[in-house]
């Protein structure tokens, strides 16, 4: 893994450096060019122009080494087998070659990819240009259409104006003609009257003349007079007869009026009956609805009260209907009117409800598509905008490409520099991260070492203390002297025996597990049971494992506190910068401290 990374970084370094060469120091370009042009000159290899001759091998080697170093391949250094000799040490040379070949292949790959990219881009550009021209054509066409429409509109406006003026003149004409007609009519009536008067005069004159002539021919010749059709005799023309005529006339008129009144009354009665029935039906329609909606609104309850009142009124009116009482009729019509109004309101309400429901349905139906439509529109607009930007950028790029006289590779490198810069930045960050990681690794190692040391020191201290206690104990007994030797022997034997064990375990402690400690340390407390302080001490030093149940719960408590604090005090100054990594670190540190 480390190997891969190193190659990678070296490659990246190469790339970065090459870019920095191009971008920062133009003087280096010549170098690059010469380097790239080298293979070309290889075909026409000649001694004079050759890069390397028998004479300048060391210089060549040094030069190549320099170049390799500049390419970031500092690890492989070509060396001559013997100073001044012509042979090269094969391994580094081959390595260098291999690295170079790798670089070359990778760059070729990149090149190919970029070329492909370039092709794609150019094709899309072409497509975009085509569509652009098409759109331009369309725009032109629509502009032309628009102007045409404007023209027609103008013409129509003109037409309207002329028609309006025509209308005005026509109106004037009509007015004029009307006045002419009126004047003619008056003239005509005047003339007619004059003529009529003349005619009347003539008629008078004529009848006078006829009477004066005593026209014999004007006569009736009847064989014998007829009787009247009714058989009566002719009445004298008297005032009585006149009055009787009047009477008869009025009688006939009266009878006619009576007949018409009768028919009207009949009709009225019919209509009233219809009205009554209508009212009844309306009440029937309105009343069952009432209970369901009663109490829903105050208005409805009021309505109900009205209805009850009306029902009474209606009954009363029905009773008095036969009397043709004006008042009752009014009441009836009023109640009918009210009920009709109510019914109409109800129907209207129903109507509005229905229409509302429908509207809601419609709006629901409509809203969803509208929203989606708007979303879609927004999305499409964004897309269009993006596309436009894209096109613009591409056009610019193309323009640049076309305008600048860079050769392909430089241009490609230029185009690539943006991404490379980014990569560089990322690499930088990665390196930083790696470094930090290594630091942490180192610190951890240090810490574990310190912990081991501490453990060892503690053991030594324990032993010292044990021996000291033994001595104390032996000194306290009446047979101090006698026992001193034996105990010391025993102790020493014991200590000698125990010492290597501890030593070994402490040496092995880096790899051994906590279970080894249990096997090892369990007999201890039984031995040192009479001395509680010792067990405490052991526990403090974590040499005695806790019971399985209390082990975890005890962990965060005081017994280990000092130990952890020690660890922390060790670590804290270094880790203060990275508070986020602390917890991870401390946990790992914990584990380490146990092992």
């Amino acid at each position: 893994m480390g190997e891969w990374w190193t190659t990678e970084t070296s490659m990246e370094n190469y790339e970065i450096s090459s870019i920095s060469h191009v971008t920062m120091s133009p003087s280096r370009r010549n170098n690059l060019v010469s380097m790239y042009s080298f293979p070309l000159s290889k075909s026409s290899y000649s001694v004079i122009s050759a890069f390397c001759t028998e004479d300048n091998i060391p210089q060549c080697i040094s030069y190549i080494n320099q170049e390799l170093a500049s390419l970031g391949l500092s690890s492989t250094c070509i060396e001559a087998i013997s100073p001044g000799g012509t042979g090269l040490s094969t391994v580094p040379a081959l390595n260098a070659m291999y690295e170079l070949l790798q670089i070359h292949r990778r760059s070729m790959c990149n090149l190919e990819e970029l070329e492909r990219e370039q092709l794609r881009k150019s094709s899309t550009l072409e497509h975009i240009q085509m569509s652009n021209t098409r759109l331009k054509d369309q725009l032109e066409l629509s502009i032309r259409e628009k102007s045409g429409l404007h023209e027609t509109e103008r013409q129509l406006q003109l037409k309207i104006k002329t028609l309006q003026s025509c209308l005005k003149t026509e109106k004037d004409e009509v007015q004029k003609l009307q006045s002419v007609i009126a004047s003619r009519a008056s003239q005509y009536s005047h003339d007619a009257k004059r003529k009529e008067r003349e005619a009347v005069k003539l008629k008078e004159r004529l009848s006078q003349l006829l009477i004066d002539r005593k026209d014999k021919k004007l006569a009736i010749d009847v064989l014998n007079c007829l009787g009247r059709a009714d058989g009566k005799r002719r009445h004298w023309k008297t005032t009585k007869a006149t009055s009787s005529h009047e009477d008869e006339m009025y009688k006939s008129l009266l009878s006619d009026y009576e007949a018409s009144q009768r028919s009207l009354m009949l009709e009225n009665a019919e209509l009233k009956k219809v009205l009554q029935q209508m009212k009844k039906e309306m009440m029937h329609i309105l009343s069952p609805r009432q209970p369901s909606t009663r109490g829903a609104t105050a208005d409805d309850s009021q309505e109900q009260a009205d209805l009850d009142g009306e029902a009474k009124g209606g009954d009363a009116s029905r009773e008095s209907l036969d009397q043709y009482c004006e008042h009752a009729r009014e009441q009836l019509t009023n109640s009918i009117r009210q009920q009709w109004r109510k019914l109409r309101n109800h129907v209207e309400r129903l109507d509005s409800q229905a229409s509302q429901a429908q509207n809601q349905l419609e709006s629901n139906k409509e809203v969803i598509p509208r929203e989606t439509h708007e979303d879609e529109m927004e999305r499409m607009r964004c897309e269009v905008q993006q596309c436009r930007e894209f096109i613009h950028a591409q056009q610019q790029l193309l323009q640049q490409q076309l305008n600048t006289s860079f050769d392909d590779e430089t241009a490609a490198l230029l185009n690539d520099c943006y991404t490379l810069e980014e990569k560089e930045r990322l690499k930088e960050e990665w390196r930083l991260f790696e470094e930090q990681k290594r630091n942490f690794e180192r610190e951890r190692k240090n810490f574990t070492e310190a912990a081991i040391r501490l453990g060892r020191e503690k053991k030594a201290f324990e032993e010292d203390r044990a021996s000291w206690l033994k001595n104390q104990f032996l000194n306290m007994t009446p047979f101090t002297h006698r026992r001193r030797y034996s105990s010391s022997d025993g102790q020493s034997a014991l200590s000698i025996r125990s010492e290597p064990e501890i030593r070994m375990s402490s040496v092995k402690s880096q790899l051994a597990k906590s279970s080894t400690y249990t096997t090892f340390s369990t007999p201890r407390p039984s031995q040192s049971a009479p001395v509680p302080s010792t067990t405490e001490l052991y526990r403090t030093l974590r040499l005695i494992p806790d019971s399985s149940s209390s082990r975890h719960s005890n962990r965060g408590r005081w017994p280990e506190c000092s130990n952890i604090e020690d660890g922390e005090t060790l670590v804290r100054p270094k880790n203060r910068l990275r508070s986020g990594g602390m917890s991870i670190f401390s946990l790992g540190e914990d584990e380490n401290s146990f092992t």
Partner: protein
Amino acid sequence: MNFSEVFKQTNQLCKVSPDGKYLATCVQYRLVVRDVSTLQILQLYTCLDQVSHMEWSSDSLFILCAMYNRGLVQVWSLEQPDWHCKIDEGSIGLVSSRWSPDGRHILNTTEFHLRVTVWSLCTKAVSYIKYPKACQKGIDFSRDGRYMALAERRDCKDYVCVFVCDDWHLLRHFETETQDLAGLEWSPNGCVLAVWDSCLEYMVLLYSLDGRLLSTYSAYEWSLGVKSVSWSPSSQFLAIGSYDEKVRILNHITWKKITQFEHPAIIDNTKATVYKEAEKRPGVGSDEMPLHNITMGATLFNTQSKYEICPLPVQIPVVKPDPDRASPKIGISVLAFSSDSRYLATKNDNMATAVWVWDMQKMSLEAVLEQTSAVRCFQWDPLRPRLALCAGNTKLYLWSPGGCVSVQVPTEGGFQVQSLNWHCSGDSLILLGKEQLCLCYMDTDQEDK
């Protein structure tokens, strides 16, 4: 349906007596009275000259024959063939003669409308009514025969005189609010008098018997107005036909317009049935005749015709009248209510081939009869809702709510029906040609089906 043989007549003077028993016809200067049922000649009278007008008295006892060009009126009695009466108006001339409703008086209108002379056959008395107005319909008797309304013109103003026909007592005399009165007509119940102005003004006035103005109605101004007026037999409606090709119906209570019937050139009213007369030459298979067609006794040289129900909309042929000529051929010239007031038949002059039948209950168009030639005359059956019409050809057309028939008149020599009259029983029709007449008997049983 049966047809009688053809008789001669002149001036289309042929009338059935009001009691329906006799048929009087004038042939030149002779008056022939026949029995309607047998068609046998009962009486034969010889007048002094060619008769211009002939009329039965209301009691069917006397016949009046007027010879206008000689200023003479002769009266004949059916009961007493020897009895005779001759009225001579002298040099003053005669333009119109008529019976009074009682059948004992004759009213003669002199030339230039100088006066109306009332001759009494009972007393030989003569009386004059001065200043009668020369107009479309200046005299009208109420249906019960008690009153006569007469239009008068004095000092360039219109007046109406109401006479009691009994003794010619002037009952009322009042001025009308017309510019130029054109006609008057009593309502069938005799209590309302409709008066209308000349065509220059659309104005209809309604007067009570006692001369009170009940109402005036004017549909529009500035255009030619009323052309025809007709009361419904029930006195319930007054139909006014005008030059704007519309019929307006007034009611008898408020005298306001109830509705108006338009006569459009394109009929797209889905409720109306349009019967179109279709002619076909003889020889074409007669078994193709549809239900509404009954062609009878087809002679070899006459064309047959039948009615076809046209799918709507239908275009009625319209003749555009010359606007510069007086009394243009446009507007509703004839209005006729059926006897039960249920239907109204109308004719629009610029659509001369069509007769329109309106339903007065639904106030809508019921049927349109489109003929192949111009309609000359139509008349309702006096008892049934049945319309007979003629169009100056050899066919008789009948319409009833059930359908429509076209009947060929089976006579020799091309009898062309110019006019027709129903017998008062509604059982027969008198068809009048140019110089002939013919009776058509309805098969009552068949009609009842």
